[in-house]
């Protein structure tokens, strides 16, 4: 039977294999070698490769990012972690002004082979400063690559591709995917940076999702299938460079587009997806495209409000049915109030 790994295990395996294969690879960041090992995603690395290639750091996000750039310019392939993407905001100068510009401004002479692993999340009272989904900041910047893996298989394959890439890669993981398990082959394999991935095929509606929202989209597709609506579910696992071909193909087939993002709707990457379809498939959509994303407010800590802040499968279902001209089905779009909605699964103790 096929080997199954959890998302976080797939991540550490990818780094472990690359460190074994290439001595230029090393990993560092706040908490990397500590007992929690970035939610398990760096587990075993220090024991395996020693504290020179796997090390903890001071709390200096901007400096550490610059240090990674410098090491990359000097022939290394650093993997660094910002445990939460909110912390990466301290490093925007190094990421956007420096890493992203280096290759072009050296006339193509220099590459910056570095991977920045960072995590987005939701729920469990993390609140406004520990749960933002800032992927669009990076998707807007030429010179960066932006990768957001969904499955354990993709997490490992895309992380390997990112570490081998000669450019700065923002590798954005989702905390609610960490315990997701799935088949992960042994050894080194690559999932190419770029293509959008088809998770499910259907003729009626196209659901394009990002990161954890793919899970909600697949749940929605299940629920829709029960009522005879067949959805195409596509995952944008690379936001930059963005390849819209699969999306255009699917949307022209179904004539209906829903974009589900973990980020705020306004000025988020979901707008780019809708805009591409509007520009390139003018007149071929049967109904107005729609985004399922966050409302314009910071994340509240209390579940009483957070439960009404985060979009779920039910919201996607409701939108899809409306597009199909089907009546609103409360039972499908309302969520069960019996289980807590602020955790990925009921065994989750919190905090993150």
């Amino acid at each position, binding site marked *: 039977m096929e080997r199954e790994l959890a998302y976080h295990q797939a991540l550490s395996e990818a780094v472990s294999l690359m460190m074994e294969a290439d001595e230029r690879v090393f990993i560092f960041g*706040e*908490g990397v070698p*500590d*007992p*929690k090992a970035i939610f398990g995603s760096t587990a075993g690395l220090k024991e395996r490769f020693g504290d020179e290639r796997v*090390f*903890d*750091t*001071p*709390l*200096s*996000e*901007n*400096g550490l990012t610059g240090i990674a750039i410098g090491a990359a310019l000097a022939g290394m392939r650093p993997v660094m972690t910002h445990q939460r993407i*909110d*912390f990466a905001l*301290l490093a925007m100068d190094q990421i956007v002004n420096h890493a992203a510009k280096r290759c072009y401004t050296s006339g193509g002479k220099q590459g910056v082979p570095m991977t920045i692993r960072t995590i987005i999340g939701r729920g*469990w*009272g*993390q*609140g*406004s*400063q*520990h749960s933002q989904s800032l992927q669009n900041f990076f998707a807007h910047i030429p010179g960066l690559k932006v990768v957001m893996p969904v499955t354990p298989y993709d997490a490992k394959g895309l992380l390997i591709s990112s570490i081998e890439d000669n450019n700065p890669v923002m590798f954005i993981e989702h905390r609610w995917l960490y315990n997701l398990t799935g088949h992960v082959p042994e050894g080194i394999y690559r999932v190419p940076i770029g293509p959008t991935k088809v998770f499910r095929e259907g003729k009626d509606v196209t659901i394009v999702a990002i990161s954890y929202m793919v899970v909600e989209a697949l749940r929605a597709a299940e629920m829709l299938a029960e009522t005879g609506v067949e959805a195409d579910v596509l995952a944008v696992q690379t936001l930059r460079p963005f390849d819209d071909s699969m999306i255009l193909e699917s949307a022209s087939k179904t004539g209906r587009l829903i974009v589900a993002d973990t980020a705020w709707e306004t000025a988020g990457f979901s707008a780019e997806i809708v805009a591409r379809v509007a520009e390139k498939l003018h007149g071929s959509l049967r109904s107005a495209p729609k985004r399922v994303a966050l*409302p*314009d*407010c*910071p994340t*509240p*800590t*209390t*579940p*009483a*409000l957070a*439960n*009404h*802040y985060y979009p779920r499968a039910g919201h996607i279902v409701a939108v899809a049915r409306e597009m199909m001209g089907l009546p609103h089905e409360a039972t499908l779009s309302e969520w069960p109030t019996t289980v*807590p909605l*602020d955790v990925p699964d009921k065994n989750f*103790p*919190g*905090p*993150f």
Partner: protein
Amino acid sequence: MKSIPTETMRLMYERMVLIREVEEAIARHYDEQEMRCPMHLSIGQEAVSAGIGAALRPDDYIFGTYRSHGIYLAKGGDPKTMLAEFYGKSTGGAGGRAGSMQLTAPEIGFLCASALVGGTIPMAVGAALASKLQREDRATIAFFGDAATEEGVWHEAMNFAALKKLPVVFVCENNFFAVYTHIAERQPSDKIYERARGYSMPSLEVDGNKVAEVFTAVRDAVELAREGGGPSFIEARTYRWREHCGPAWDDHLDYRNIDEAKAWMARCPIKQLDKQLLEDRLMTESELKGLHQAAKSAAEEAVAFAKGSPFPQPNELMHGVYAP
């Protein structure tokens, strides 16, 4: 060194006990999973907060961290609204929008806490700048941990405060750890106050488990600030007892020297003061018991109040994104 008035000693003791009991109550109830937000306890570090709180006027400002239950209570914060906030209720200080990490109470001069390490340090300097422009003799405390001094913004804030001679006191609670990472893995020396000397301001180290030492140092620094003498830096060396985030004990994780931990616990800031107060006959056994009892019931009352309070309504989700 000026002596400390008896009522100040009593006040500080009372507040240390309140902090301890409130956090123990949080620890007792946390596993009920009704406080659904990250929680960083100050158990073992109470003397730093109590010493700061007693050295301040009600109109002085404090800027804190995600580990601020202690200074909130030491500044006179209400346990009820704090617990209600942790329970995510509309009676919470921020109506359930802040949780523990962003605990804020403008009504007592606790202007901001942050889930970002170092995030409030420059804000404290800005508030001090405001006081100077407003010609007020108010002092501001920037309260942060040892790892916060590794953030560039600490350096920027220190430089600016010294340059403009602002009425701010930087109090660094050095408990030697950032989560599981010892300061030796983060800084070339653990004597943070020595580095602070490079900023042309008075800088000293105190025993953070001796509330009198903390109080005296902060009182003098605050006085200097009020007189226009500019900022000071105080490193209070102490130790965290429980896990970094959450109510549990985590020594099984083996990230710190257990003997070191035991030694620090033996130097419990409250027990040390117990003895002294009794020896100096400032309080009797029964008075002390009474204080502990009172604190414990205040804590449980706060929990009851929180549990009994209503949740905010769904339609309030978008309230307060912008100030009118």
